[in-house]
């Protein structure tokens, strides 16, 4: 019954003008790109790649409107980089962009790791993986540390079953689900090398570089401003020095380590204000992180980590580390 109702395909002349700028405005995608620029420090190559991807999708959409059909582009991506380089944050934005360009129906991002997909016994994995896929449908499925799905040293590992199901969905439900695989660059390369099926279905590879100390300082200022804190000039200098030292140590997780360092600095600031003998604490004092709040870290005193050892790296700390 649909055949009669279908609108006849109009073949437009080749010199039909196309207003790409108007399309861009209509999709509201520029807004997300601008936000990305503003809220994320650095990440030049990543921003460029996302801009390019958005352009590709926008042009594809316009082509579709003019009945220039082609296979819908493969959107599955891999985000590689060290911990705390912004992969999860960018994935959230990517979901929003894909939503505005109508490549996914909902803008939702479902984040999972191996434990959410792979079961403990025979027959447990397929329902678990399918359950996750069912929930993520219509949006973006973000698989963190995806390479742990594949354990070559154990040929009876259930991860392979999960990969099999994912591959099927990535191929058959391209209009329903976009999959983003994330993790360390070298491990992901190995993973793709031993899983050619995955490699051939992932079209966009985006690499997230580590941040420079200056970028990390800017990120710190941004994070603090979000929570109505500020760094005094001395504190900014101290934090830069802290960052340089911290970068050389184990378990460094880029922006996440900075976030943790700031959380500890806030704790010290609160204690300092509480214990200070002077009666006159002003509003500005409540907002300001001073150099001493940062210099009290063990990173300076003994060149070791603070208490919580900065999560993010997947190596367990050799020994429990106690805060100063």
């Amino acid at each position: 019954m649909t055949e009669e109702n279908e609108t006849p395909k109009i073949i437009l002349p080749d010199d039909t003008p196309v207003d790409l700028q108007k399309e861009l405005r209509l999709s509201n995608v520029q807004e997300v790109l601008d936000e990305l620029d503003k809220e994320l420090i650095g990440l030049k190559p990543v921003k460029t790649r996302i801009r390019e991807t958005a352009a590709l999708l926008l042009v594809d959409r316009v082509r579709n409107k003019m009945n220039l059909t082609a296979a819908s582009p493969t959107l599955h991506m891999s985000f590689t980089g060290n911990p705390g380089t912004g992969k999860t944050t960018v994935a959230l934005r990517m979901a929003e962009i894909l939503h505005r360009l109508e490549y996914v129906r909902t803008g939702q991002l479902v984040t999972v790791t191996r434990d959410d997909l792979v079961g403990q016994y025979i027959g447990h994995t397929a329902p678990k993986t399918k359950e996750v896929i069912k929930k993520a449908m219509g949006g973006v499925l973000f698989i963190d540390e995806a390479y742990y799905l594949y354990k070559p040293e154990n040929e009876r590992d259930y991860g392979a079953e999960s990969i099999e199901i994912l591959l099927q969905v990535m191929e058959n439900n391209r209009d329903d689900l976009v999959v983003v695989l994330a993790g360390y660059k070298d491990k992901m390369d190995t993973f793709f090398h031993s899983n050619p099926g995955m490699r051939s279905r992932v079209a966009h590879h985006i690499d997230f570089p580590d941040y420079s100390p200056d970028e990390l300082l800017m990120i710190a200022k941004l994070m603090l401003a979000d929570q109505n804190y500020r760094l005094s000039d001395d504190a900014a200098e101290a934090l830069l020095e802290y960052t340089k030292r911290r970068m050389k140590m184990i378990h460094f997780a880029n922006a996440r380590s900075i976030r943790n360092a700031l959380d500890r600095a806030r704790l010290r600031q609160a204690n300092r204000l509480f214990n200070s003998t002077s009666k006159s604490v002003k509003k500005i004092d409540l907002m300001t992180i001073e150099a001493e709040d940062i210099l009290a870290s063990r990173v300076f005193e003994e060149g070791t980590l603070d208490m919580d050892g900065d999560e993010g790296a997947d190596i367990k700390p050799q020994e429990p580390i106690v805060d100063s």
Partner: protein
Amino acid sequence: MMTNYGNRMTQGQFSFLPDMTDEQITMQIKYALDNKWAVNIEYTDDPHPRNTYWEMYGMPMFDMTDPAGILMEINECRKTFANCYIRVMASDATRGTESVKMSYIVNRPSNEPGYNLVREERTGRTQGYTILPYACDKPEGERS
């Protein structure tokens, strides 16, 4: 053919209409999700109108945002129980109970033989009536 008009069981919504396409089913699921109703899938081989509680195919699906995942589940159920009746239900939890808001058939057996109308002689020349689905002639587990 009074008991089996059109050789089709008619229960729930849309059952007098032609079978829905997957696109139409998707729209109905979307309507349920937009209302924040939980959707579940049930199947049976017994088309008796008083057969109220069918077998559940998996758990009710809460926290779903998009119909595609549910349609995927419907297709799994169709594969497993190809020759059964399958229906999709939507339940509303706003009153503190899961009350059924939608119920429609998405799969039927290839052959629907209808019902046997049985007349019962009662005292005083009164008649009792009952119907028995031919689909249930064989014992459970040997049908299909």
